Structures are given as structure tokens and as C-alpha cells.
């Protein structure tokens, strides 16, 4: 891979060696994947969500495959903030890549406490605020769908925490532009979109839901065109950088997001399908730029040729 273009990218204060991250919840805390790929090559790692206290998550089954997609209802299972810092963060710190901690809560104060605590830790490069996880019955969805709530949450988070703040938006809204603008006004540094789409599957043989939690979040190629549309809409509405995700399986998919307006992308479900996907996407983006004779990645961002 000699002579590939420089893929470095700046998302405000957050500088990445390349624009390809791994999406929260699809890469654990990096430990398992470190056995399979070189984490130092990634633009960044968005950790599985961390909550203040340990969370047991949803009853099984938690996963079901649907056409070109995966339906999940993990329910934010995680060991809680303190164990995260002690065991997971200390592991992640060892790698030369950006560590973005995905945080979730059930009320505003949860978020503030986590953010405060993490801003004191070494090795955290940014926070990704999960206001959109559709699996948790309380909180979750409501945070992510109300612009006013988002505005206030972001504002307060900025007051307690100096880290770059990434707001992760849910696609389950009527107008994602509104939500994005509220986050921007509140002071969000970066937006990431999209989280999973609320969905459900029925086992017609048993007449039961296929997920223990009844409903779950749809991810994978099935949602890619929805995610690309939302990135395009939001990129026309805000002036902060966007991390695009949803069904990215190969470089071409990532480029759709970039051309539509994303300054970086995250690979999610595809990590399960092929752990090498993020590395292949990095390579493929480099090759594309080279083939097209585009010398700066930045000039590709939002380059969609249309009359707005």
C-alpha cells in the first residue's frame, strides 16, 4: 500500500489518522478484536456504551438476523463506569488510536457524572453521547427525539467536561435536522449518525417476538440508504463535522457517506461479518482517492453534485 494519499482528518479538536472508526457496541472494548487486527491502524475506537453502574442488559435472545440486517436488543450490558476505567480503558490506552467512550444514562445526571469522571482520565480522546439507544425502556429514545432536551443535555455536558463531545443521533425521528441543530446549538463538537432503527421480528411458528426485548435496533446494509439520506440532510443543516455510519460493509459504502457529507465513518455490524472490514475500508478509501486523483480527503467530504 505504498504511495497512498494522506488520510488524516480533523473533526474540530479531534484529529484522526484516518477517517475510519469502529462503531460503539460492535467492537466491545477492543480486547477481542485486538487478537484479530492491528488496532493501531484504526482511525479510532468507539467503545461499547458505558453506564454509571453495571448493567445486566436484556434477556435473550438478543440478536436475530433479518434481510440484509441485524436486529439487536443487547440492552447496554456493561460492567459500569468504574470497572470500565480500571480494566477496559487501561487496555485501550495502550494503542495508538483515538479512544472515544460511548456513554449512556437514564437521566441527565447520569450523563453528567460519567462525563465529569471521564474528563479526569487519561486516554479518553472524546465522548460519544448515546442519546439514541432504542433498547432501554427508560430514557434512551426520549433523550434523542426531543430537541429541547438535547440542547440542555449538551449544554450541561459542555460545562462539566472539556473533552470533544460527539452527539450520537437516533434515526427514529421525524426531522433529524431539527435534532442535529439543537445539538449544535447546545455546543456539540461533532455529530455521529445513525444509531439503529427501531424494528421487530416475529417467529410465526411460536407466535412470539424473536427478541427477548420484543423490539430492537436494526443495523447493517438494510439501513444504509436511510443513514446516507440522514447524513446528507444533517450536513446541509449544521456546521459541525459528522461521523457517518449504518451498514458500511466496504469502502464504496463509506464513500457514499463521505460524499453525502460525513467527515469520518464508523464500521459497525460489519465487524461481526468480517473483522478486517475497517482496515479494508481504510485501504479502499485511499485507493479511491488515488484513482480519482483527489489529493485531499477533506475535499471529498460533502462533494455530492446536486443543486441544493
Amino acid at each position, binding site marked *: 500500500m505504498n504511495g497512498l494519499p494522506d488520510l488524516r482528518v480533523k473533526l474540530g479538536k479531534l484529529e484522526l489518522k484516518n477517517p475510519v472508526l469502529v462503531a460503539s457496541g*460492535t467492537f466491545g472494548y477492543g480486547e477481542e478484536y485486538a487478537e484479530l487486527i492491528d488496532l493501531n491502524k484504526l482511525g479510532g475506537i468507539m467503545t461499547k456504551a458505558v453506564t454509571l453502574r453495571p448493567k445486566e442488559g436484556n434477556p435473550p435472545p438478543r440478536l436475530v438476523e433479518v434481510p440484509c440486517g441485524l436486529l439487536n436488543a443487547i440492552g447496554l450490558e456493561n460492567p459500569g463506569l468504574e470497572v470500565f476505567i480500571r480494566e477496559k480503558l487501561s487496555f485501550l490506552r495502550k494503542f495508538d488510536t483515538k479512544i472515544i467512550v460511548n456513554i449512556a444514562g437514564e437521566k441527565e445526571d447520569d450523563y453528567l457524572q460519567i462525563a465529569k469522571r471521564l474528563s479526569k482520565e487519561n486516554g479518553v480522546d472524546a465522548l460519544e453521547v448515546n442519546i439514541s439507544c432504542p433498547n432501554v425502556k427508560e430514557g434512551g429514545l426520549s433523550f434523542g427525539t426531543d430537541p429541547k432536551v438535547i440542547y440542555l443535555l449538551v449544554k450541561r455536558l459542555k460545562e462539566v467536561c472539556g473533552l470533544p463531545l460527539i452527539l450520537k443521533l437516533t434515526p427514529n425521528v421525524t426531522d433529524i435536522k431539527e435534532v442535529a441543530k439543537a445539538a449544535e446549538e447546545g455546543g456539540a463538537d461533532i455529530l455521529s449518525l445513525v444509531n439503529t432503527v427501531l424494528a421487530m421480528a416475529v417467529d410465526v411458528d411460536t407466535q412470539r417476538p424473536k427478541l427477548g426485548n420484543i423490539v430492537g435496533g436494526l443495523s447493517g446494509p438494510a439501513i444504509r440508504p436511510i443513514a446516507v439520506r440522514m447524513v446528507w440532510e444533517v450536513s446541509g443543516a449544521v456546521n459541525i463535522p459528522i461521523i457517518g455510519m449504518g451498514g458500511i460493509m466496504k469502502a464504496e459504502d463509506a464513500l457514499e457517506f463521505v460524499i453525502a457529507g460525513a467527515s469520518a465513518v464508523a464500521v459497525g455490524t460489519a465487524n461481526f461479518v468480517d473483522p478486517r472490514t475497517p482496515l479494508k475500508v481504510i485501504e479502499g478509501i485511499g485507493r479511491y482517492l488515488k484513482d480519482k486523483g483527489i489529493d485531499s480527503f477533506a475535499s471529498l467530504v460533502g462533494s455530492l453534485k446536486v443543486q441544493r
Partner: protein
Amino acid sequence: MRQVKSEVLFNRKVISGCFVMGLYCPEIARSAEPGQFVHLRVEDREEPLLRRPFSIYRVENEKIEILYKVVGRGTKILSRKRRGEKIDLLGPLGKGFKIDSTVKRLILVAGGVGVAPLYFLTSRWAIAKMREVIVFLGAESKERLLCEEEFKGLGTKVKVATENGSRGFKGLISDLFAKWLSSGQLLSESLICACGPLPMLRKIASLSKRSKAVCYVSLEQRMGCGIGACRGCIIRGKNGYLRVCKDGPVFNAQDIDWNWMP
């Protein structure tokens, strides 16, 4: 754990709807332990999307074999693979059968394709180390019995049950096992290992418990990553959720909360 592109060496039907596939993958063959599995991508396409997990059934030199039943899209595509095609494999994965040196007798209970990890266990080193290996083999009918001759060839005692009575005991393998237990033939220093459908495992586990015997079961759950990262494949253990892919697939039956199993 490795990710490799592995060549299909053969793929043959063993009984109707069940196939054995040989795969060339020295890295995995070298380190595989009985009870572990591989997570494979049936095709390089977006549908079906996820990998599929299969127990390792045999290992010989640089080759592994899986024994699988066609139940849906993925296994159907698998059954059409021909020699020379490549398959992307992750493996070996999970925790296999940990058998300590005090165990002198192995009692294996297999239902259907559940025979796969138990056959690997037996062929690998059970015979050399054990005073006795008894295999309970269950199937719907004699036509659907798997591995009877192979187990005999390894020098084990094989006890057969078929649901329609076309061979051996007429009934479920767990009934035959219960009968055998109640006749007091379970000697000390025995370990029970079972793999098969959930209702069977539940029964074997409870029978073993009543007999105060240690029982290992190999469990299944729908998987995402297959390597412990997504926490999608959990089952309920006595002390919280356990990942089938990483904490299992082989568990001590007493660590499982059987009331929570579907």
C-alpha cells in the same frame, strides 16, 4: 483465534439433510480443542449477513471437519459448496471440554448433530486416558443415526435409542440414559458430557444432578461476533448472563440457570 480463508476439501452428504465438510486450515487444526467451534461466513454477500457457528467435529493434520444439518438459508448455501471453494473462517473459538485428571470414565450423550463435538472429544484423547467411554446416541430413526460405527471404531461402548424404535431402545436418548442411570451403572470418577437439542440437555442436566454427577453441556445461542465482543449470544447463568461464544459453548450444567432457558 485466527481468521483464515480456508479451502473446501470435500463436502458430502452423510444422511439426508446432513453433511460433513472438510476444510484445509492448518492454523485452526493445530490449536483446536474438543468443544470449540468455528464461525464461518457462508458467502461473501450481504444476505445472509452474519457468520454461522459450527462445532469442530474432527481434526486431522491440517484439516478440520464440521458436521452440519441443513436448517435454513446459511446451511443450504453451505451444502452446495464444492471442493476448491474458499470459506472465511474464524476459529478455534470458545471454551471446550476441560477434563481434569481425576476423571476416569466418560459418559457421552448425543442427540442428532450434537454428536459433533463429542466425537472430536472422544477421538482426540478420551480413549487413551479413560478407563471407559460410553456413548449414548439418539436419533429419530436408524437412518438418521450418526457416527455409530465411528464411535465403535474408537473402542467405545455405544448405546442407541431411536424415536421410532427402528434401532436400539425405542424412545428418546434421555429416556435410555435415565434408565441406565437408575440401574445404578454410573460408576465414580465419571464425567457426563452432552450435546443436542435443548430439551434433551435440560433432562440430562437434571438427571446428572440427581445422580450427583458432574455434567458438561454444549449450548447454542444465536451469535453475532462469535468472539465475545457483542454480548449477543448470552444465556442465563447462576450468577448473571454468560456468553455462549466465549464463556462456553461448553458449560458445567450446574452453572446454568435452567429455569431461564426457553
